[in-house]
């Protein structure tokens, strides 16, 4: 769904003071233009305040100890779980906190591997020779390598949906790729390199029809658009705190309750047990079963504050703002000779990660010129190397936005591209 507007619904000038970092300069006094929120977002002061307040006043281990601090810390940690659950329309115990989204995907992949030696209740997670694991060609490495590895460990076959020339998934062969032997389909909601928003329920419906599980990489969607697991026919979703104004060191796995109940553990140790004997143990129910060791407590508190901040703005507003910026940038880039966008050319089913190449200028060199002017963009393969191969480019330059960016930032980017073209003498 895309909303096209003449102006952003957000008052960016009112938002920016919440992010002290954005007021700084870089290099020789150039005002910072931060256009790399797809990699990591900047944090509003209230996120740091919440962490600081927690650490200075209530820090203690969670889920143990009978003292007041322990209760406060546990309440703060579990309140964060509740807030995240509400933010994505999930049940409280369906939220598992991990180190990051990468760990969350690995959790599912390794748990599926562990199903081979778990009880009969875990049967539906088992994969072996002849079974299929399906991904897409546009996955971030984080949603590719864990499945490559699971396939290698189990003898299953890794298959993927390929890409069309304009940056979409080729769905013509959906039924051939997701066949009767498919055990799980893992794919990205919004591509971190192309910006493409994938038709989740269309793909999930095919997965459902063959009894396959569905895992959604929501790292670029949960921070940027309204997201409800109730409207998506999926089994697992992952996202990270630091891409949604929250702290680094915390990620989220959402899983359907009935699946988490029977999913074997990945990491084992303290906090995730029911009973422990010298020769065997039983495990706690979810979500604790998947949170071995001391969890990211203060990070959860910070994430809670980030969720509150985003909710106060309103995710529909965030989405509309980014759609506006994306449309503006696609238009501006279209006016620059020698610039080619890698990804969908319009804002239809497309989010705010805009990758492009400039004829005659390597992305690293472009990034250097932009950096000299204070403009921070990502250059490289964006942890999606197969996408670069697919489109015949060594690397791309990517601009990605958030609630604190405005059209002035994008104008500075486009000016910088022109400056780089003059500097490297590639204009005709």
């Amino acid at each position, binding site marked *: 769904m895309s909303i096209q507007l003449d102006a952003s619904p957000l008052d960016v000038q009112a938002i920016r003071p919440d992010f002290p970092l954005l007021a700084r300069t870089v290099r*020789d006094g150039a005002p910072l233009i931060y256009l790399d929120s797809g990699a990591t977002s900047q944090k509003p002061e209230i996120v740091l305040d919440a962490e600081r307040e927690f650490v200075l006043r209530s820090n203690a281990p969670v889920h143990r100890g009978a003292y007041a601090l322990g209760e406060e810390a546990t309440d703060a940690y579990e309140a964060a779980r509740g807030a995240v659950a509400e933010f994505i329309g999930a049940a409280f115990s369906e939220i598992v906190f991990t180190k990051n989204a990468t760990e969350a995907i690995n959790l599912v992949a390794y748990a599926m591997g562990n199903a081979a030696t778990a009880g009969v209740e875990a049967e539906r997670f088992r994969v072996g020779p002849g079974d299929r694991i399906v991904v897409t060609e546009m996955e971030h490495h984080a949603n590719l390598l864990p499945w490559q590895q699971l396939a290698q460990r189990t003898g299953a076959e890794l298959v993927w949906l390929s890409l069309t020339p304009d940056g979409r998934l080729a769905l013509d062969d959906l039924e051939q790729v997701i066949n009767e032997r498919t055990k799980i389909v893992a794919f990205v909601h919004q591509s971190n390199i192309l910006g493409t928003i994938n038709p989740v329920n269309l793909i999930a419906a095919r997965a459902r029809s063959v009894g396959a599980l569905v895992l959604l990489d929501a790292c670029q969607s949960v921070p940027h658009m309204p997201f409800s697991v109730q409207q998506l026919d999926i089994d697992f979703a992952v996202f990270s705190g630091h891409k949604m104004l929250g702290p680094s060191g915390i990620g989220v796995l959402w899983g359907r309750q009935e699946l988490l109940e029977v999913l074997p553990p990945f990491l084992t140790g303290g906090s995730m047990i029911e009973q422990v004997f010298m020769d065997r143990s039983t495990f706690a129910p979810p979500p604790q079963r998947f949170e071995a060791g001391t969890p990211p407590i203060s990070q959860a508190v910070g994430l809670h504050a980030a969720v509150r901040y985003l909710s106060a703005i309103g995710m529909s507003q965030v989405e509309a703002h980014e759609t506006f910026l994306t449309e503006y940038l696609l238009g501006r880039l279209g006016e620059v000779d020698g610039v080619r966008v890698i990804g969908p050319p319009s804002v239809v089913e497309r989010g705010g990660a805009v990758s492009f190449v400039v004829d005659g200028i*390597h992305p*690293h060199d472009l990034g*250097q*010129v932009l950096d*000299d002017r204070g403009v921070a963009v990502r250059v490289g393969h964006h942890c999606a190397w197969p996408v*670069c191969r697919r489109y015949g480019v*060594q*690397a791309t330059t990517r601009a990605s936005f958030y609630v604190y960016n405005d059209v002035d930032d994008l104008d500075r980017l486009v000016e910088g591209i022109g400056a780089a073209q003059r500097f490297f003498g590639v204009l005709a």
Partner: protein
Amino acid sequence: MKLEQMYQEIILDHYRSPKNKGLREPYGAEVHHVNPTCGDEITLRVRLTDDGTSVDDISYEAQGCSISQASVSVMTELLTGHSVEHDLEVATAFLAMVQSRGTVEPDEEILDDAVAFAGVARYPARVKCALLGWMAWKDALAQAGGAIDLPDAVGNQTDPTKDLASTNGAVHE
């Protein structure tokens, strides 16, 4: 503006018109290196003289940014036709310069045109770019048998080849 400090004319010239480019035969060893952070890659061949003491030819195919492309081009000019001993000294000086964050005053006697890359040292993210070709050369040299008999080739008390190998993120495929 600091851009000109990094993108010296020598660098831009070599980028636009790279020297010694193309893969040639015969060769003693061929390596393929990539910079995993950006995907830049190089295939590089080294041919030593029959007695194994000098570098007879360095040929390559590479894709990458101006810094990586100019760096390998300058390197082939500096290292081809010289003794392995001399070349290791140059390579070690180059490495020290670009990894110094600007603290090492480059020796133009040794580094010649390669001093143009001194500005790269101020941008840690670009050091791997400047070293891509040099790491490939060092690896190919070792495989061609060139580095093995010269443990004392450079007077830095450390094994220069080990030093070179341990400081770059480039992977050998």
